[in-house]
Structures are given as structure tokens and as C-alpha cells.
């Protein structure tokens, strides 16, 4: 399946675009798989990825969290609002 990943702040700046699409297995894909796919297919994001959390359906997600075809996925660099 193709998963669209929203990008913000430095991640958006690095990628030069506000979302990237990565291919993940249709069954059993996790946040860890997403991270690997981004490192492989979006080298511009590789060095920020270690500092970035992944949000799935608007919640912070651990590496083991499942990603299905309907999931809303985003990279969340360290926040600085307030």
C-alpha cells in the first residue's frame, strides 16, 4: 500500500514538500517499517528521522504501532509552540 506521510517544520523544509508517499506492506506494517522506508526512499529526511516522532491518527505512535491503509501518518519534529 502507499502511505502518505505529512511533513512539518524542519522535515517539510528538508523534503521541500509537505508530504511524501512511501510503499509499505498492505498487511502488518508498523511505524518501524515506515521509518525504514523513509530512510531508504527519502534520504533528505534520514538525518532528522532520529529526532522525529511518528503520529498515527493524531496520536504519538511507538515503533510497534500498526499502520493500515486508512491511517493518517505524520512526522513530528520536536515541538516548539506555546
Amino acid at each position, binding site marked *: 500500500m502507499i502511505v502518505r506521510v*505529512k511533513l*512539518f*517544520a*524542519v522535515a517539510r*523544509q*528538508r523534503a521541500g514538500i509537505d508530504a511524501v508517499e512511501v510503499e509499505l506492506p498492505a498487511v502488518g506494517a508498523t511505524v518501524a517499517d515506515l521509518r525504514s522506508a523513509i530512510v531508504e526512499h527519502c534520504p533528505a529526511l534520514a538525518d*532528522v528521522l532520529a*529526532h522525529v516522532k511518528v*503520529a498515527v491518527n*493524531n*496520536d*504519538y505512535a511507538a515503533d510497534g504501532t500498526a499502520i493500515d491503509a486508512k491511517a*493518517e501518518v*505524520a512526522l*513530528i*519534529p*520536536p*515541538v*516548539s*509552540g*506555546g
Partner: protein
Amino acid sequence: MIALTHEPIDCNRVLASVASNDVGAVVLFLGTTREFTHGRQTESLDYECYPEMAEKKLHELEHEARHRWPVIECHIVHRLGTLKLGEASIAIAVSCPHRNDAFEAGKWLIDTIKQVVPIWKRENWSDGTTEWVHPGMGKP
């Protein structure tokens, strides 16, 4: 009540929204744009957010604050877009029957918002450079 807005924050409206006859104490916190950070001069700031998640997290934090303290009303407004020096990026108003609770809830809200709500600021330095601020990430 929570809001994300591109307009300047109207503090009187925020304060009015937390008033009631049960309120004995109101604490309003404003985060404002400083001119100097570690000696570097700021020209302006830009705030961007992940709107759906930011709204969800702000709602969760309001709910959690109401669970922890006897909050009567709570109003959180975060500004987005370009801010001039001295403008407020956030207003948090909490009203409670008694003051200790209002101070604690207001302090907890701003501390926690700064940790978990997906909003980011970009420094537009007076030397013409710009820089996203990502605490703990070092120079990207």
C-alpha cells in the same frame, strides 16, 4: 475551549470567556515574542501547526486539566502565522474557585503544551536567516 487562530489574540475576550459567579481566581498566561535569544536578535516568528493533531492534543490537555483540578472554565488560544515582537503566541486562561488550583492548572497546561502539541516556531533572525526551533535536536 480551544482555538488556533491567525488573528492577534484578544485577551479581553479570553478573560471574559472564563468568568462566572463561581470563579474566585483567574490565571491568564501569555507567551510573548522576545527580541533577543542568547544574544541573537529576532525580527519576527512564524508558527505553524499540524491542525488536526494540535486541536486533538489541546482538547485532551483541557480535559486532563479539568480532571486534575476543579476548573470552572479553561480557554486556550494558540496564534499561527507571522508574529511581530511582543505579540502573544499563546493565551491560556483558567478559572477556579480558589487560586492555588488556577495557578497549578495554568502552569501545568503551558508546560505540557510545550511538550506535546504539534506546533512549531521558526525564528526569523534580524540578520535575514531563518531557523526552525526543535528543542533537543541541535542545529539541523
